[in-house]
């Protein structure tokens, strides 16, 4: 395609829903980016969904309202969608396609990259070794997020998963190293979007955050681009500009519903619960774009946040996400206090690589294991107490119940605007285990106990 003299196709054969069928096209390929020019001069954008000889099916991102078959012109970019990349994204608020919503100029970059991205060469991947401190005690202490990791947040219906995602995005840091956050919000209502923007304001003004906002009323195909644009920007910030980047993708269930809708519009054969059969590989093409590359200091960490329809963890979206991600943080209604993280159902598989001596605290892994073991025993004791009454429990079991209560009140419960330092989190964690008799703390070394234990025995 010529930059200076692009061909505009005027043979619009049909307008059907969000689709424009253009005839007479030459050299147009699948997934090519298209610009649709209306009679008024307004420009809209689209993607080629299908090509058959000289017919191209274009899905218009902004919808086909107001388009006339006689007066619409379509040009094709000659390549899939590319976005400008660079530091210009930082501190900006854009829609799901990367167009500014903050009154500023369009995002400008010296370079551009295809939003579909390239898979990372497995031989140059470097294992994660350093943590991302989220400022949320339950995550930092028990399911530490590690740079280059993909860790999903699963939420039962009605829980404030977006608030938690926004809180993590607003507070997270990597010590003194260059850090950026990209928050890709998908399918949010105006109310939720306002809440997320309010929480993120502090970081946004510090020019470390990029917010991509795809609202529930925005076109679904735009929702398919939003996480990919976020990751394309993140990859450049990480591997060219050498920053550690946290990409928060919320809510991935909305993304998958958009994928289902587009798949149905394409007439594809539906699979489980009408999601397309390639849902797994599509999700993997997003989640697997995280990591670290040997010889380059930056990292991309992905935190997909998703609501489980009907609280069902076997639903295709959480199920397939769980196969790909390296652990999960589960928000449960059974946990009464914000952030509602159920520690016994949550796990960070990379935690061992990013916590401990020289990274967080030497006793971190042992302390986390001790707390989880204590909570597990407390759960058993609680079930027994339901049957026989608490007074019939042994003294030790009652201490475990007290420890679980101390965990809930002292460590887990946290205000949505409260950023806890690692020192504060560990202080609270030691207070929790100190409710137990010292003889019960078999997972902690003598040296750690001497330094941290504050109990009576």
């Amino acid at each position, binding site marked *: 395609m010529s930059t200076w*003299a692009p061909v505009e196709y005027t*043979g619009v054969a049909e307008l059907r829903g969000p689709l424009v069928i253009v005839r007479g096209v030459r050299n147009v390929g699948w997934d090519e980016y298209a610009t649709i020019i209306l009679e008024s001069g307004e420009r809209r954008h689209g993607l080629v969904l299908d090509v058959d000889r000289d017919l191209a099916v274009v899905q218009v991102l902004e919808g086909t309202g107001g388009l006339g078959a006689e007066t619409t012109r379509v040009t094709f970019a000659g390549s899939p969608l590319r976005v400008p990349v*660079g530091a210009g994204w930082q501190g*900006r608020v854009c829609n799901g396609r990367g167009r500014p919503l*903050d*009154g500023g*100029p369009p995002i400008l970059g010296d370079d551009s990259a295809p939003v579909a991205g390239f898979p990372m060469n497995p031989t140059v991947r470097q294992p994660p070794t350093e943590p991302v401190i989220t400022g949320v005690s339950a995550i930092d202490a028990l399911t530490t997020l590690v740079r280059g990791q993909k860790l999903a947040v699963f939420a039962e219906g009605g829980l404030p998963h977006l608030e938690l995602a926004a809180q993590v995005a607003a507070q997270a840091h990597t010590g003194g190293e260059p850090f950026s956050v990209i928050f890709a919000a998908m399918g949010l209502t105006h109310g939720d979007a306002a809440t997320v923007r309010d929480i993120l*304001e502090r970081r946004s003004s510090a020019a470390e955050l990029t917010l991509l906002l795809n609202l529930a009323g925005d076109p679904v195909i735009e929702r398919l681009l939003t996480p990919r644009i976020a990751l394309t920007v993140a990859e450049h910030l990480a591997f060219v500009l050498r920053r550690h980047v946290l990409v928060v993708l919320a809510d991935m269930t909305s993304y998958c519903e958009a994928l289902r809708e587009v798949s149905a519009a394409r007439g594809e054969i539906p699979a489980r619960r009408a999601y397309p059969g390639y849902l797994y590989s599509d999700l993997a093409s997003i989640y697997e774009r995280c990591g670290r590359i040997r010889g380059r200091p930056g990292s991309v960490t992905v935190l997909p946040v998703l609501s489980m329809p009907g609280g069902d963890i076997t639903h295709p979206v959480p199920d397939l996400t769980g196969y790909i991600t390296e652990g999960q943080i589960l928000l449960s209604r059974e946990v009464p206090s914000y952030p509602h993280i159920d520690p016994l159902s949550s796990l960070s598989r990379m935690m061992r690589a990013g916590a401990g001596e020289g990274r967080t605290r030497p006793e971190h892994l042992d302390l986390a294991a001790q707390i989880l073991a204590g909570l597990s025993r407390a759960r058993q004791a609680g079930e027994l107490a339901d049957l026989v009454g608490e007074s019939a429990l042994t003294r030790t079991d009652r201490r475990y119940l007290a420890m679980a209560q101390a965990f809930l009140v002292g460590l887990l419960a946290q205000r949505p605007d409260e950023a806890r330092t690692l020192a504060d989190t560990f202080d609270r964690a030691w207070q929790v285990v100190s409710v137990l008799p010292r003889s019960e703390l078999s997972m902690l070394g003598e040296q750690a106990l001497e330094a941290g234990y504050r109990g009576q025995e």
Partner: protein
Amino acid sequence: MRDALAPLAEALSRQAEIDARAIAARAEDEAAELVAAARRDARAVLDGARSEGAAQAAADAVTSRVEAERRARRMELAAQREALDELCARSAAAVGALRDDPCYPRLLDRLGDLARASGGADLVVEVQPDGGLLAKGRGRRVDCTLGWLAVRAVDALGGEVRRLWAP
């Protein structure tokens, strides 16, 4: 008889006196304790209010700093947008002025060649009154009007545009 009861009365009165003194002492102790507790409570309330006030002041300071930063950022972005709009307007004017250039007919020839090379040799070229030309064929056309050329020129600058506001 009266004398016989006198020691009892004396003992009772002594006991009553002792009891009264003990009650008075206890009451005094209790009163002192109450006063001390009240003072302690008052101190705690004061300390709480002081730390709450300090926390609120700190939070307010953060809020106003964040608000100021947001305002500054909004103004900066709006100014950048204005600079870009100005560049677009000026480039449209500059490209529009090409019509008065002696080389304009050669430019039209060159644009015609460009349009046909891009859209096909069968395109029919129409010179536009606003400048530039439009090449039309069956089901396709190539817009080489000067207005669009100006827009494409600014688009082609890409990241260069940032030099408008770079320090």
